[in-house]
């Protein structure tokens, strides 16, 4: 079959489709979004009636995927690394229930925090949950692993975590497909105890999971993705995992690496292979993207041998993503560099688009807040997080999805006044509704701005579960109707909008203001599409 050019994310999607996927469940999040989008646009997926509608958040996505697995079909759940924190409850417990139909959890990590608030390494989650991990080093492996992860999942009745990082997720290369496998038939789990995690059942399942650990390790020892390349110079051995393997090999283009190399792309860590390289070599350099997971294991608490090199001893930086130059330096090879960036080159940070409704909202909010001083606006995750930067400097917190409302509540509980929350429509339905309910339950004096731009803007304009529902949701949760204020963020409404915000700031209870105007990006795309018709 001819090669097709695919992003790492797209290769995963195509691999899952060819493996007989029946449903993908996901909430958009960079760098994972393109997987679900690829399936949504795939003719193959449409013909196979494969489920691909966005989920409300990562937890609901994970649970739906477990449900599809329960019914015997193959399910993929996709999220960014911090999304796994949201989905952690069902994720951890899915390792106890195990899988019926193949269950693959794709997590895209973002080292260097290109679009994220931390760079947590999802391999730790898989280790925590005691399930196998696969970590592709290139686009072909991304495709193949998506396919094989379903096989592994069904072979051992376990969820499998597939971990990619930004650079692979968003890089394109040629990928060769395999023959597509048909979807599973409906095959509802026949063991009535398997998915009932009453303590008596869970204890039995947990012991079974522990018993599987040896099998998982044997699979990793024999995996075609883990291999040992002999070398002549045993002064150093190199363990390279995932995309770290590419950065290593980049330094030996046209030559052969003189050192023994162990590539690890399937976990649990294959102990026998690791023992071989550690025993054979005087020192071992560990090259892994993300946290030093393998290195930490080898080094141990006491670092008795002192011959394990990597991120923990400063041979490689402790944080941030790797690149070929950092690996060259770690190898003691000559580094390369062009010429320095001229001083006149100014930073060009991302900014809100011209015509963005958030601009008008922030201008009105800033004016209304002027008399109250700085530090009183709690915000959330989305394009509007850019409101922290000049010229707006309108917000003071961004922690996790939904935190704006509950942090405002906590600060109000502490006696701060006024307390304002700024949250997007999609983030609100993702994780803000329960936060709002907490405030309503106590009638905490907070003012919540739900910026309704009718889309999930920052990840490229995915449909929002909140579309057309914000007012009714707030009313249903219990916000007094006269304190649900819908405004239109436009320059011509500036004075009126400032007035509305001031009125609600003065109210001693929960009020919700909904600045409502479509995202300028989705609007212009919609207009173009309409013009074509």
């Amino acid at each position, binding site marked *: 079959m001819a090669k097709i050019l695919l992003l790492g994310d797209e290769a995963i999607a195509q691999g899952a489709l060819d493996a007989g996927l029946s449903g993908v469940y996901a909430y958009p999040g960079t760098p994972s979004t393109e997987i679900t989008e690829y399936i949504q646009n795939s003719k193959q997926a449409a013909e196979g009636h494969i489920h691909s509608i966005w989920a409300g958040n990562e937890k609901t996505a994970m649970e739906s995927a477990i449900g599809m697995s329960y019914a015997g079909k193959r399910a993929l759940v996709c999220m960014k690394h911090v999304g796994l924190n949201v989905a952690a409850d069902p994720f951890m417990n899915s390792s106890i229930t195990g899988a019926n139909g193949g269950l693959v959890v794709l997590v895209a990590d973002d080292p260097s925090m290109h679009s994220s608030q931390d760079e947590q390494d999802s391999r730790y989650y898989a280790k925590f949950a005691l399930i196998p991990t696969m970590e592709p080093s290139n686009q072909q492996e991304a495709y193949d692993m998506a396919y094989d992860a379903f096989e592994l999942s069904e072979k051992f009745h376990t969820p499998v975590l597939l971990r990619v990082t930004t650079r692979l997720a968003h890089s*394109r*290369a*040629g990928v060769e497909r395999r023959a597509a496998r048909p979807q599973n038939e409906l095959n509802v789990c026949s063991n009535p105890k398997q998915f009932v995690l009453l303590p008596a059942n869970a204890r039995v399942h947990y012991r079974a999971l522990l018993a599987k650990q040896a099998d998982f390790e044997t699979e990793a020892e024999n995996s075609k993705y883990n291999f040992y390349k002999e070398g002549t110079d045993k002064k150093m051995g190199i363990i390279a995992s995932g995309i770290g393997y590419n950065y290593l090999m980049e330094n030996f283009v046209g030559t052969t690496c003189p050192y023994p190399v162990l590539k690890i792309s399937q976990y649990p860590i294959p102990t026998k292979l690791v023992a071989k390289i550690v025993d054979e070599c005087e020192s071992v350099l560990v090259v892994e993207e993300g946290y030093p997971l393998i290195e930490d294991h080898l080094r141990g608490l006491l670092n008795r041998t002192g011959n394990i090199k990597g991120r923990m001893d400063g041979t490689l930086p402790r944080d941030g993503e790797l690149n070929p*130059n950092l690996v060259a330096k770690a190898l003691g090879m000559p580094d390369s560099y*062009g010429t320095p960036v001229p001083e006149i080159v100014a930073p060009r940070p991302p*900014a809100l688009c011209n015509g963005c409704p958030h601009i008008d909202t922030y201008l009105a909010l800033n004016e209304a807040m002027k008399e109250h001083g700085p530090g009183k606006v709690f915000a959330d995750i989305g394009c509007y997080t850019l409101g922290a930067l000049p010229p707006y400097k309108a917000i003071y917190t961004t922690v996790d999805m939904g935190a704006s409302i509950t942090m405002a509540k906590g600060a109000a509980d502490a006696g701060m006044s006024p307390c304002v929350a700024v949250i997007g429509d999609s983030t609100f339905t993702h994780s803000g509704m329960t936060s709002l309910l907490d405030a309503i339950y106590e009638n905490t004096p907070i003012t919540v701005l739900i910026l309704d731009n009718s889309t999930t803007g920052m990840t490229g304009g995915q449909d929002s579960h909140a579309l057309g529902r914000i007012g009714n949701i707030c009313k249903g949760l219990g916000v007094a109707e006269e304190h649900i204020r819908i405004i239109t963020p436009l320059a011509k409404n500036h004075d009126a909008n400032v007035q509305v915000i001031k009125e609600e700031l003065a109210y001693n209870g929960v009020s919700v203001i909904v600045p409502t105007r479509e995202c300028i990006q989705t609007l212009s795309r919609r207009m173009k599409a309409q013009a074509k018709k």
Partner: protein
Amino acid sequence: MKIDIILAGVGGQGILSIASTIGVAAVKKGLYLKQAEVHGMSQRGGDVQSHFRLADYEIASDLIPMGKADLIIAVEPMESLRYLPWLAKDGWVITNDQPFINIPNYPDEAALKAEFDKLPNKVVINADQIAKDLGSARSANMVILGAAAPFLKMEYAEIEDAVRTIFARKGDAVVNTNLACLKAGYDFAQKNQ
């Protein structure tokens, strides 16, 4: 044979259309290709870059090592300078000279010119004007691609073919305008290296 290119611009300027055109030509030639893109938050008017690698052998890294890029192709002049640490000593900078100013501290024209004067190998072109004169202001990227064409280690006809493939869906008129833009950039580069 290998060619490593940094594509640079500002989010929304469409640097990836240049990449996909070269990509079509490369795939037709049976070359290996890797192309690392920037998605997500930076696309909102921030600086964006793509590492685009072609070779007749399997490519290891998705990222070009610093000091190893053969070309910087930029649709915005200040952005072309941001990636000089990646450019090889004998590498070339091909850039539009029309600034995209969305920050308060954008350098003035003379300062930019002084930096370009220091570069040993460059093609600095007013792609916006050329595209406009040829009746398609939106095709400035094809002018830039044309200006880069002499450095791509491919036949010019192969790049023309790729432009035809990319724009075929949009009809002959669009194909021909883009080919004219490509040619104008190519001719400029031949005269102004």
